[in-house]
């Protein structure tokens, strides 16, 4: 009995992996090289772009999964970013002795502590946000947009109540400051760290999605929610989990973004929001890989155009979105929905 079953599995048609969008990144980088001229500048810009892209990816990945799974688009996602960044200012503020000590180990511990606190607080608030703001309006897109926007307004004001309306500095620990020379190119240490951290998050997320049962269920849920439900899985519970992880990741991204900018303002979240939407639209709503490529494209393009034609840099994201949508109207990796 077993033998025919195995052959049947082998005989299943496999979907050819779509690698075309992956090529966009090296193509973009290579096209930029002759335009920029100097290799060292190009290396610096590329790293800056990748670092920015990684941070955006960490923030946006939760947003795209939440949308894919439940058709919930959270306009209040930005609140978690701001929350994470402000938590980091508080945690690092308490640990000034450690952040200015110059010892790599102490610095690392301080930053990790800030990230952990930011992630758990953002995740905890995510639970409340899901319960209070999102659950009552499932399946009502219009109300959902309005209510998550309302959540954003209230969240931002509450952050102002706790931390005050002014910008707060968020300085890098001593060991993370400065640059490393790669040939002639100076690459800021923190950018390298961001790239590594982003890659780790991407790797873990891809591994969870492709190699665990939860990941399988999430992917199946994104493809066809009702089918997964009819097989007896509670997709709501899964959704809450994804929402909380997404919020925690936004918190982490907030810490990284704040350290990148060296200061945090309460409007941070609403400013990043537009960028996030562009990224998840480019990637294809619900696709994590698409979101990753979208974020990298946005980061690289912003840095290249910022160097070449600063005026265009302000619109580069919109331009990118229009071009991508003209090529693939549903984003780079359209998620097959009914």
């Amino acid at each position: 009995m077993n033998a025919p079953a195995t052959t049947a599995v082998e005989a299943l048609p496999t979907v050819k992996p779509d690698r075309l969008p992956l090529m966009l990144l090296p193509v973009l980088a290579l096209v930029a090289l002759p335009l920029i001229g100097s290799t060292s500048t190009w290396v610096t810009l590329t790293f800056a772009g990748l670092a920015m892209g990684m941070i955006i990816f960490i923030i946006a990945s939760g947003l795209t999964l939440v949308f894919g799974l439940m058709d919930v688009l959270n306009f209040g996602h930005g609140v978690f970013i701001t929350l994470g960044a402000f938590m980091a200012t508080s945690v690092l503020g308490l640990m000034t002795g450690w952040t200015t000590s110059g010892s790599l180990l102490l610095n690392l511990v301080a930053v990790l502590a800030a990230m952990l606190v930011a992630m758990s607080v953002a995740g905890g608030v995510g639970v409340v946000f899901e319960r209070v703001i999102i659950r009552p309006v499932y399946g009502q897109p219009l109300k959902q947009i309005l209510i998550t926007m309302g959540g954003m307004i209230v969240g931002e004001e509450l952050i102002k109540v706790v931390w005050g309306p002014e910008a707060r500095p968020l300085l890098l620990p001593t060991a993370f400051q400065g640059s490393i020379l790669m040939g002639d190119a100076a690459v800021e240490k923190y950018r390298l760290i961001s790239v590594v951290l982003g890659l780790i998050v991407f790797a873990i997320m891809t591994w969870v999605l492709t190699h665990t049962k939860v990941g399988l269920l999430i992917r199946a849920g994104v493809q066809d929610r009702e089918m997964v439900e009819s097989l007896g899985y509670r997709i709501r519970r899964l959704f809450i989990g994804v929402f909380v992880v997404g919020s925690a990741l936004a918190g982490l991204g907030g810490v990284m973004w704040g350290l990148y900018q060296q200061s945090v303002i309460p409007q941070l979240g609403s400013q990043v929001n537009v960028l996030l939407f562009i990224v998840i639209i480019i990637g294809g709503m619900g696709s994590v890989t698409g979101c990753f490529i979208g974020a990298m494209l946005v980061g690289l393009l912003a840095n290249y155009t910022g160097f070449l034609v600063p005026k265009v840099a302000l619109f580069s994201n919109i331009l990118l979105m229009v071009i991508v949508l003209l090529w693939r109207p549903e984003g780079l990796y359209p998620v097959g929905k009914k």
Partner: protein
Amino acid sequence: MLNHLLSGDLPRSRVLAVVLVIILAGLLLTPFIFPGAKALNVAAKICIFIVLVSSFDLLLGYTGIVSFAHTMFFGIGAYGVAIALTRIGPTWKGVAVGVAAALVVSLALSLVIGLFSLRVKAMFYAMITLAVASAFQTMASQFSEITGGEDGLSFKVPELLTPGFSLREAPFLGVSLDGKLITFYLLIAVTVVLFLVMLRIVNSPFGRVLQAIRENEFRAEALGYRTVSYRTSSNVLSAMFATLAGALLALWLRYNGPDTSLSFEIMIDLLLMVVIGGMGTLYGAVVGAAIFIVAQNYLQELMKLASGASIKIPLLRDLVHPDRWLLWLGLLFVLSVYKFPAGIVGKLRLSAWRKRMAQPGA
């Protein structure tokens, strides 16, 4: 007569009717009963926002489309007048050219955005408009040769509307009849006309189709209405009215910059006004705009008193800090979406309807 003027869409609630009359009378009599420049400015802002919020309600409340680019059209109107008056000089021709040019730009832009993205889901449209609006705002502050950049444009208006112009030397009932007053009443007149036109639109067969689309797009399509063209028309119409509101704003302020007409804060304010007042009724726009702008200007002073009284409790003090007034309106907004999605006006109409039903012989 009144029934005809209001296109058959009467307030249908005694309380609402009284509130509307109070708002109208309050606006008309502002220069006489509330002295000072601030009261006049607040009243003028209410007028401008009545037009703007009504036009947004046409889109959000009647057609069920969420757009975050509404302030963009508001800004186009304001910039149209500002740029034309700066270039041509303070003449009526300048005003006409500015308004006309702004209307053409808005028409083209709303048509393109509509056709490009109204076929897709509501959320997608909301995101696209958000992106387009933010790009437009950047553009306005970048092309500083034309728009004045971040500083904006200060310009002169036709002589009749300048504060220096005087209708007669002696003040009338203690109010000097200067150009500012003329502008104010011009503003009210235009507001009333535009509001009645919009009321006419939403109560026409066309408006009914829009509401049908809002309720069930699939069914409306099945009945033979081309929903895409109806949605696009609604988008274009609301953009046009927003443009006119922008032109009024520029004429009143004699100044325009990115923060006064394009900023995202105004978009948030608009959402709050529409939802708190009541989506899907234009009277809601009137009530919402009036309440919100009065709150924006006077709630802070009330909160100053409150924060002075409870100064000993640290967190509470921060919560009622005058700068946190948006927090409370935001909470009211969230509650409105949950508890009474038809807003204040919907609530009033519902209770009036229940009362009528409860009466014997009704």
